[in-house]
């Protein structure tokens, strides 16, 4: 089974040289730590920055330089700044090669719910609806089950949707799945030490899993 860093590490393997990538808050943010040497990637922050650098050294924080999670960050050589309209313009026109974000639920047809729980204070969708509606290539990073132990990979989402038929790949602490065009979660890799049976029990949406699905190799 993977921890959060393991999930991030596995997702980092999906990133190819030359990608522009948008990382959501939470586990996706950790992905930046595992991008292999020699793979040149530019991180977009949708508040208006291409080429997001690491956190600043203590004492060098600049209140005018934050990411979409409102964290202090830095620029890199080759960074550029732009306004919010251009930022979502480049998202809509699919200039961003890969979007990685968290989710509360994903359905077997690729719908995602990650912004609203009825009855709870709703904070808003931020940029998530724009990202999922526009991106060509979206990977969800999430825990496989919720706090009540219920699967988050479902036949259909129960929570209000963020976007429809948009998720292509899911990485959880248990496994990696492709979301099939025709519907269903296709098991691609198991996390180390996790059995196909265990994954079957934890997945309530339609699952296509070979008994000899390979175990993932990290590092």
């Amino acid at each position, binding site marked *: 089974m993977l921890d959060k860093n393991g999930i991030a590490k596995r997702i980092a393997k999906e990133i190819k040289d030359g990608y522009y990538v948008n990382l959501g808050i939470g586990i996706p943010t950790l992905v930046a730590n595992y991008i292999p040497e020699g793979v040149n990637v530019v991180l977009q922050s*949708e508040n208006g920055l291409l080429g997001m650098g690491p956190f600043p050294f203590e004492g060098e924080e600049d209140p005018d330089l934050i990411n979409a999670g409102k*964290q202090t960050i830095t620029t890199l050589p080759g960074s550029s700044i732009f306004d*919010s309209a251009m930022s979502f313009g480049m998202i809509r026109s699919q200039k961003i090669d890969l979007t990685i974000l968290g989710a509360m639920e994903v359905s077997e047809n690729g719908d995602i719910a990650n912004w609203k729980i009825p009855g709870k204070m709703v904070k*808003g*969708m931020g940029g998530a*609806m724009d990202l999922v509606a526009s991106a060509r290539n979206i990977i969800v990073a999430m825990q496989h089950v919720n706090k009540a132990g219920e699967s988050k990979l479902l036949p259909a989402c129960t929570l209000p949707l963020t976007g429809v038929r948009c998720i292509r790949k899911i990485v959880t602490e248990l496994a990696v799945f492709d979301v099939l065009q025709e519907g269903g979660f296709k098991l691609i890799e198991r996390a180390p030490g996790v059995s196909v049976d265990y994954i079957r029990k934890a997945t309530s949406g339609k699952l296509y899993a070979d008994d000899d699905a390979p175990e993932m190799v990290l590092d």
Partner: protein
Amino acid sequence: MINKVVSGADEAIKDITDGSTLMLGGFGLCGIPENCITALVKKGVGQLTCISNNAGVDDFGIGLMLQQRQVKKMISSYVGENAEFERQLLSGELEVELIPQGTLATRCMAAGYGMPAIYTPAGVGTEVAEGKEVRNFNGKDYLMEYAFDADFAIVKAWKGDTAGNLVYRFTSRNFNPVMAMAGKVTIAEVEELVEAGELDPDQVHTPGVYVHRIFQGSGYEKRIEQRTVRTKS
């Protein structure tokens, strides 16, 4: 050139009245018009509709206006981290319209560019699409979203000149340029006000034609919401 300079925040906001619709620049607490917010709180104008990506925190930014119950309605993409906001929302004192961040930005841009409506895929198939026209282009569904219609846009820039030209610094740019284009009246506060001719014309982010009033603000606090650092190894 046409001189846009006013004496300060109080003069800049003097004709903002109860019931006005305001755009306020900034992302979180980054790039917000601190001086104008303080002046609005002092003036005590109420029943405002505020279009702003976020609603500040309890004791800073638009949160200061919420404390004084000056806001009737917020139009935002994300309103977390604000207990007073939550209280007013649950008690029904405050109305909130949540819209996708890109839609928010593009509806501002549409107003500035004289486009009455735009099409975006954001929100298709979700509750955001309720009551909206859906149209298919090249096999993909889009929502039609209208340009905003705001009485005032209040923005913060790093530098500005007497002709109203603005330059922003790093990600404090965010919504400020698109809102500056979109207000019927646009008010800009800047950290440093210079004479016309001191900014490179190629490097102006917001041309002065969009700005009706400009002043040099003071005492910027520039609060950081999430101070994240690394240590030198």
